[in-house]
């Protein structure tokens, strides 16, 4: 059991590379070598604070030309491929952002998996853009406002049939998920009668995936009669429903959301004391997410050794982490049909198309015999890119920076690269094998007499050889 007390570095519990990588991996998608260096030179709580502030102050993604294209607009352009080209553009920009930064993208991924919609269902680029910007806007914003805006978002209106919910023909789909999945948690403070009544209060919002039109409120479709929600009766409308949830059921909401944040960012079995304190903070801060996220990442609890490497990386985390940690962000890493997008899709993580309304279960669910072996294959492809003609000098430089000044000591170079890419040290036996992979096919005498060093032409390939070994280790699959 642990509380929110912040991490304080000490001689026995220092701010070190392992902790820095842990933080950057959990908050974002892995740290670049520069970022890690900067973190190590900073005071930890200040670094964490400013990193999270920086995410919050980033401008929203710039709107593409097609941000408001309706079906009629696409029809007028008379090009069947255009709609899909535009989606590809968005995917490209997201994966580029992941590799270049990854911080807000990770939070975007979290909320995408919380407020699930499926592009395959709403199938409209305009709605996609609207949904995407909403997630970015509120990923560290006010949660109450986030939920309130989400229910009127066209992607969500289509996905959970809110746009079909009208007086006399109520559709309970969104009302149920609003409470069960988005705010309070299953069977946590509401009844079936509440679902029916909330649905009635949410009536009247319209939009159509066929025309991709704007969202509008049609008062004629609104159920303009009294409803009884959580025992309170009145002619409740959209905003009143949200006010009721966040006042009458504030404890349920706060605990449910903080519990979910904990399981995603700390460990999949929550610490009740920690989550309770976090929930109190959430209510006190009037549903602002920023202080809650900061409290998690600044806590002593978060940095406990036993949580480092305790969560299975998602496919996107696995691949992006590898690329980011390499420090290589050449545009050629972005391959529309390559590993990052299609590889993660093939492993069950297709962006904008989670498996169902409850989202990807994550953690152990990401790994089975089949997906694990495919991960090795995709990681190998990424390493192939990292060691190609364009990138191999950067790969060499990374090893030089990490192992300085031990440029001719394969043991220490392996240790440095392992700590960097795995985030912790390996057991002795695994480490000894790893050294053999770094040595590769260089005859032993060149190591014995000290002739070999990282400036050798073969070095980038040897580093890649080691990486191929490292990415296959179970340790690498964990964050």
């Amino acid at each position, binding site marked *: 059991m642990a509380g929110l007390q912040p991490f304080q570095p000490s001689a026995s519990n220092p701010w070190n590379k392992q902790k820095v990588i842990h933080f950057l991996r959990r908050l974002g998608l892995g740290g670049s070598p520069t970022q890690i260096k900067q973190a190590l030179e900073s005071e930890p709580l200040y670094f964490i604070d400013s990193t999270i502030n920086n995410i919050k102050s980033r401008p929203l993604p710039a709107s593409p030309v097609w941000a408001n294209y309706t079906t009629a607009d696409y029809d007028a352009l008379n090009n069947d491929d255009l709609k899909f080209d535009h989606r590809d553009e968005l995917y490209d920009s997201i994966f580029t952002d992941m590799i270049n930064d990854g911080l807000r993208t990770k939070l975007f991924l979290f909320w995408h998996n919380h407020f699930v919609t499926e592009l395959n269902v709403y199938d409209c680029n305009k709605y996609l853009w609207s949904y995407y910007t909403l997630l970015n806007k509120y990923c560290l914003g006010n949660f109450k406002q986030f939920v309130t805006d989400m229910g009127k978002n066209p992607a969500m209106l289509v996905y959970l049939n809110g746009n079909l919910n009208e007086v006399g023909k109520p559709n309970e789909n969104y009302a149920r998920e609003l409470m069960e999945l988005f705010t309070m948690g299953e069977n946590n403070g509401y009844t079936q009668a509440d679902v029916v009544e909330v649905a009635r209060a949410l009536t009247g919002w319209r939009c159509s995936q066929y025309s991709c039109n704007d969202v509008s409120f049609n008062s004629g479709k609104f159920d303009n009669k009294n409803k009884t929600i959580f025992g309170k009766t009145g002619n409740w409308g959209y905003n009143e429903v949200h006010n009721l949830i966040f006042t009458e059921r504030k404890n349920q909401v706060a605990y449910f959301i903080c519990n979910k944040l904990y399981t995603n960012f700390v460990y999949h079995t929550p610490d009740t004391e920690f989550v309770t304190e976090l929930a109190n903070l959430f209510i006190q801060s009037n549903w602002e997410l920023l202080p809650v996220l900061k409290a998690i990442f600044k806590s002593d609890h978060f940095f406990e050794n036993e949580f480092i490497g*305790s969560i299975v990386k998602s496919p996107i985390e696995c691949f992006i982490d590898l690329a980011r940690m390499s420090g290589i962000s050449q545009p050629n890493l972005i391959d529309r049909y390559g590993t990052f997008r299609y590889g993660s899709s093939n492993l069950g993580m297709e962006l904008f198309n989670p498996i169902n309304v409850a989202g990807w279960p994550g953690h152990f669910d990401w*790994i089975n015999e089949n997906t*694990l072996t495919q991960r*090795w294959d995709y990681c190998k492809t990424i390493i*192939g890119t990292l060691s190609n*003609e364009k990138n191999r000098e950067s790969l060499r430089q990374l090893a030089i920076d990490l192992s300085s000044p031990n440029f001719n000591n394969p043991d220490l170079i392996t240790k440095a690269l392992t700590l960097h890419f795995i985030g912790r040290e390996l*057991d002795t036996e695994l480490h000894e*094998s790893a050294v053999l992979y770094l040595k*590769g096919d260089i005859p032993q005498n060149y190591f014995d007499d000290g002739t070999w060093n990282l400036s050798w032409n073969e070095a980038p*390939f040897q580093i890649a050889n080691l990486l191929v070994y490292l990415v296959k280790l179970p340790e690498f699959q964990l964050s």
Partner: protein
Amino acid sequence: MSHKYHNKRKGRTIENTEAHAIDHKTWNRRDFLQSTGLFAAGLAATVNGVPLYAMGTSEHFSPLSAFETDRTLVLIQLRGGNDGLNTVIDRFNSEYYNIRPTLAIAESNLWALDQKTGMSNQTIDLKPLWEEDKMKIIHNVGYPHPNYSHFRSSDIWATASDTDEYKKDGWIGRFIDYEMPAFGEAQPTIPPALQIGVQTDLVFQGQNTNLALAISSPNEFYKLAVSGQLYDLTSLNQTPADRSLAYVRQVANSAFRYSQSISNAYNKGRNEVNYPDTNLAQQLAIVAKLIKGRLGTKVFMVYIDGFDTHANQNNNHPILLQRLSSAISAFYSDLAKLGMDDKVLGMTFSEFGRTIYENGSAGTDHGTSAPIMLFGKGLSKGIIGNPPDLINTDQYGDPHFETDFRDVYATVLQSWLGMPSEVSDFIIGKDRTPIEGLVPVQNPTVGSEAFEALLGHKISAEDKDVLQIHYSILQEGPVILEILDKSGQVIRSLINEFKTYGSHMLEIHLKKYQLHPGHYQYRLKTGGKIYQRDLVVR
């Protein structure tokens, strides 16, 4: 005298670091990294989301291998470039003794293979093998326009390429590709090839995947064979991190589909002689156990390091030869206990030989050709070719080679492993001349039930949009050819018709078939069997 050869060509001696580095610059393989490692062959394919290896034992997928022979090949790599002149000695060649005043093996320190040929007394363990007709030597093996870089020359030997030709797959990899065309889909439960040591994996690199199981060291192997699992679960605690690690380790252990067969063979096979306590001998002890335990793996590769004898060669080279000889001797004695020494062909090779002259550090620098040694019962005693001519050398003072190493490979494939010559041509290249009488001949399996189809593809040289799929069938009948996406879903059907015996080629336009850049597979169904290969559209 030795000084007449000095400084003819820079870059071969380690003392000359700058020039040595230039030698290394000639190495430019692996634009796309070739895989090494334990899981090189661990890629699991799926059909409709079902991992196929789970069906590995069903009848539908069983007849996918064309392996018929019970013969095994064991490659023994001498890493660093073995000094051939001091390995197989041309006893009465006065030039040898002139050129090597300090390094030459004296007549008093050798045993005679025949009237002209000797080997140093450090290799005395090989004498019984020689006398029992279990050993052969091929003199002066090399290739035209030799490369003096360890790495490039290793690659040339591994890929069986010309000196200026960069291939990305290895000769054994290509062999297995053709023996097991459906490797990617219906994966075997035994490793088709197994190497101990993580280097020179290129030998086993197939068209799309590395076909060998590579194990980094004998220690790692023992752990695997004894526990039957790759990763230890016993040392983990109940902390969150350890619990998660235990989960992934468990999955990795069960994904390692060779563990059962290796563990079984290892426990069934027995070492019936004492092996010397050297790394090579320990590797060969493992190989013997697996062969005797009838694992079924066709090709093994082991290695011994240290042959890059730039300095004080006489302190090192004799010890290496002693270790090599004692290990091979123990290995064949062990195999003989079960009467299997006629089923196992052992073959040494090294990336190059060494300069015929001594350098200033009582060592030798990177050279060119060197002898190959072959072992196995039934080889009949013999020395193929002639010792190198030390007087009429090339412009750099290295001898002209006599036998091309690819002729040796072609002979091993055709005679020892029973490959039809056209398959051998594909693997090694045309215009090879197999060496008559080198090894006992196994009849080619062409035309048998087991060898039914060849399947491959290439992008047309004229038009990058044209994909050519080549296949040949040895029995006429219905043929289905289809393209699958990475998850194993059939996305295009290309052929579904009756085809005659022989070779066929299908050309398709990628654009027309909407095959966007990405990973695919294509699958040939014929004669009740399935052959599948990976296809990457760029």
